[in-house]
């Protein structure tokens, strides 16, 4: 099958740095990841107070999408017709542990709706959908490791079924010391053919 689709842009976000299309745009000078996320937010000149209510997984997802969709919104047609296909290994476990801590003891029982709502891995996609008004297909997958082939094929099926014009794919892993966001936008034009090998290469080149 002819590959008609391309990766127009990609982005990596780790505890050390954030880069877009291979170029580092910000390095983390501190050990504090949340502070780093705030720096990225400020760099984008964002005024979106909801950001500060999000958990780390949603912040990471939100910022990755922001960096790629904002970049494209001027040049790409039908940006609102972008589907979201995200995945990770640890689901929302980081926030799950926080909720669990709040309910572990009956004498010290303080579950919070503001925490509980983030105990689902797809909430970050919901935040992205709200921010960019994407009333589109979205799916969250969990895998032992990044699955380039599955994601490539699922993405192509969405495009070929004409469920959307573009697909924003993301790997958003937040667990213990691991913080890694990898995002790429699949469209009709670009320089990088949307193949399993290219996706895998981009993923590993952080």
């Amino acid at each position, binding site marked *: 099958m002819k590959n008609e689709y391309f990766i127009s842009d990609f982005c990596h976000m780790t505890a050390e740095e954030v880069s877009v299309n291979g170029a580092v745009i910000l390095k983390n000078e501190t050990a504090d990841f949340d502070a780093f996320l705030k720096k990225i937010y400020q760099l984008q000149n964002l005024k979106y107070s909801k950001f500060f209510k999000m958990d780390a997984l949603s912040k990471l997802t939100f910022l990755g999408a922001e960096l790629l969709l904002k970049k494209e919104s001027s040049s790409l047609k039908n940006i609102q017709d972008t589907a979201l296909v995200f995945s990770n290994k640890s*689901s929302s476990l980081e926030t799950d542990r926080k909720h669990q801590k709040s309910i572990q003891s009956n004498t010290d029982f303080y579950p919070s709706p503001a925490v509980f709502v983030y105990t689902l891995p797809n909430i970050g996609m919901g935040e992205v959908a709200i921010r960019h008004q994407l009333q589109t297909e979205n799916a969250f997958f*969990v895998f*032992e490791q990044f699955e380039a082939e599955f994601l490539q094929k699922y993405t192509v099926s969405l495009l070929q079924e004409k*469920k959307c014009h573009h697909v924003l794919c993301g790997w958003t892993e937040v667990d213990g010391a691991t913080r890694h966001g990898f995002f790429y936008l699949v469209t009709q034009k670009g320089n990088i053919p949307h193949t399993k090998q290219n996706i895998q290469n981009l993923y590993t080149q952080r």
Partner: protein
Amino acid sequence: MKAPCYISAAGLVTPLGFSAEDTFEMLLQDNTALKKQEDTAVSETPFYAAMLSEKKINTQFQQLGNPQQYTKLEKMMLLAMAQTLANSEVKITEKTALLVATTKGNIDALDVNSAFDESRAYLPMLAKKLADFYNFKTEPVIVSNACVSGILAVTVAKRMISTGLYENAVLVAGDLVTKFTLSGFQSFKALSVAPCKPYSKYRSGISLGEAAASVFISKEKHTKNAVEIIGAGSCNDANHISGPSRTGEGLYKSIAAALKEGQLEANGVDFISAHGTATLYNDEMEAIAFTRQHMQHIPLHSLKGAFGHTLGASGLLETVIGLEMMHHQTMLPSPGFDELGVSKPLHILLQKQKKPIDILLKTASGFGGCNTAVLFKKVS
């Protein structure tokens, strides 16, 4: 032209029965699994939920393996899969996918009182236990997309089979009633003080439930009761992360996408197996979306009044009951319904009806603004 895709076998583990047939039979006799529970490991105070006794599960599981080695959810899912594998007589090959749909998986492993290690709460660990048990050869695919997970997995399987990556797929969906989820919904003040009553005037919120459901999806009709998956859509509301859209936009668009793919008009649908969680906002949102689609006259039910909200399992559980209805040419009512409590009139079924269903629409909605609609067609 895309190749058709079918569901041709299923399995269920619910508080009403350890098979799709037994569970359906119990529903026919107007049974509900929602009961007052006094399980202090889940809640200090009594609550209404549909729960499975682990003792009963263990008795059933003994024919498969050692109950001590697997978590409650794993045993439920393995038992549901056993039925699907037996009913489809599928041989698992390098082209057979395993799709696991769940919101919280073994989340009870995070509890300090759990007999299992905390690492069991990682969803890939759960999937691996299931895959290894039946010797799946492909990497398991986990769909964790809030309360649409179970039905979204059907869509994912169909799409992935059409890409050629897989020839067929075994799906399993499951979720538990835990202190984790119960306390969370409590903190949202979303729990009903009595068995939940979807779409009803006197509804007061959701009741939780636990279940596992499984189906076999392939390009061939493996059994005479096969049902074709003819269209699907899964659109986000882009409105609020924990509240449904007031216009039902995402659900409306999901149904539109499913109809378009299935080349059907709204009035071509014979029955709607809706989500109906019995929260004020959800039910109202659905009523608006169905009315906007001109589907208000189509017989509809929510099974949450029988099974509670089984979260990631609900979409697949309710689909399997839908397939039973198609097979038995019987429409099941909406348990717990009293008087219409949504602003748009819906055709909520009060009593079971002997009537053929050629086209069934299954819908679901969930946190994160997600919605999914899938159309099933009876194969003659």
